[in-house]
């Protein structure tokens, strides 16, 4: 798995398009449910984006942050397993949203925290992690 992370409109999609040939885009912005990636059996390269939306959709149904974090981790583990089984490639696009002021609303604070934890949990499972900044791409060292 590979991770691309950067701020709003930083150029993350273009960075992925430049590096991967004909990937399948599984996007929350196009209305895809997170778990529906499992039906894409023929895909060789799978890009998943809109994780902040998928987290946001689960906030109301799961008031416990730790349990919600673990639920997202299970999705990452399933993707990693699928990648190994299929011999394919999984690309995760995550939004960096942790560098502004702390939001006043509880849901927004939870979303920001969970998105940050997801980024950490994704990074440790990915072979490579990339930071995208104003269209430039830099590999993050461990």
């Amino acid at each position, binding site marked *: 798995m590979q991770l691309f992370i*950067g*701020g*709003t*409109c*930083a*150029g993350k999609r273009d960075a992925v398009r430049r590096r991967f040939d004909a990937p399948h885009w599984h996007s929350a912005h196009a209305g895809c449910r997170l778990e529906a990636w499992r039906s894409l059996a023929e895909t060789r390269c799978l890009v998943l984006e809109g994780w*902040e939306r998928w987290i946001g959709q689960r906030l109301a149904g799961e008031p416990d942050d730790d349990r919600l974090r673990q639920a997202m981790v299970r999705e990452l583990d399933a993707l990693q397993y699928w990648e190994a089984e299929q011999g394919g490639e999984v690309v995760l696009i995550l*939004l*960096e*949203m*942790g*560098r*502004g*002021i702390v*939001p006043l609303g509880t849901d*927004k604070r939870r*979303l*920001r925290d969970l998105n940050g934890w997801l980024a950490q949990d994704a990074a440790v499972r990915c072979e490579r992690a990339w930071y995208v*900044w*104003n*269209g*430039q*791409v*830099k590999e993050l060292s461990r």
Partner: protein
Amino acid sequence: MIAFISGGARSGKSAHAEALARRWQAERGGARYYLATSSGGNDEWQARIGRHRQARGEGWITLEEPVDLCAALERVESGGTLLLDCLTLWASQLLYSSEYASELDEAQGVAMIERLLAEARQRNVTLVIVSNDVNEGMPPEDAEVWRYLAFLQRVHRLVVQEADEVIQVMAGLPQVWKRRGEERS
């Protein structure tokens, strides 16, 4: 030569940009200009401007132009060095200033930047452009803030693509993304 320097609030980006403009002017000769995109403002804003002016020191010809960057460039002599500080303020004035908002949109703003970069190269003016990293917090909910952020990021990506030197400043330390002669990602 064109440089793009960005970072968070009080990251040291202006000081780094000023040092770079001084160094490039020393190497290339010509006059050194400071283009302030801010104008007017309240007492607190004037104090900020005064603090920046004092930190810059002597040897700068100061220009003030809130929106029309190409008109400001025309006032720079060929072979000079121009420090533009900053794009975030310029972008907000282009979209929302009562004087310009009804006339200019994002596409015209992008076209203005394209023209600025091309004319600077054509007239052998060295450009050092300063901006702010404002896109790594929570995504905005307000449509107008989204519009502003998308516009500013579009301008950033354009300038970064065209620039010879691209630097992100964090805690006063410059992180080099691109430097003349080095490979572009």
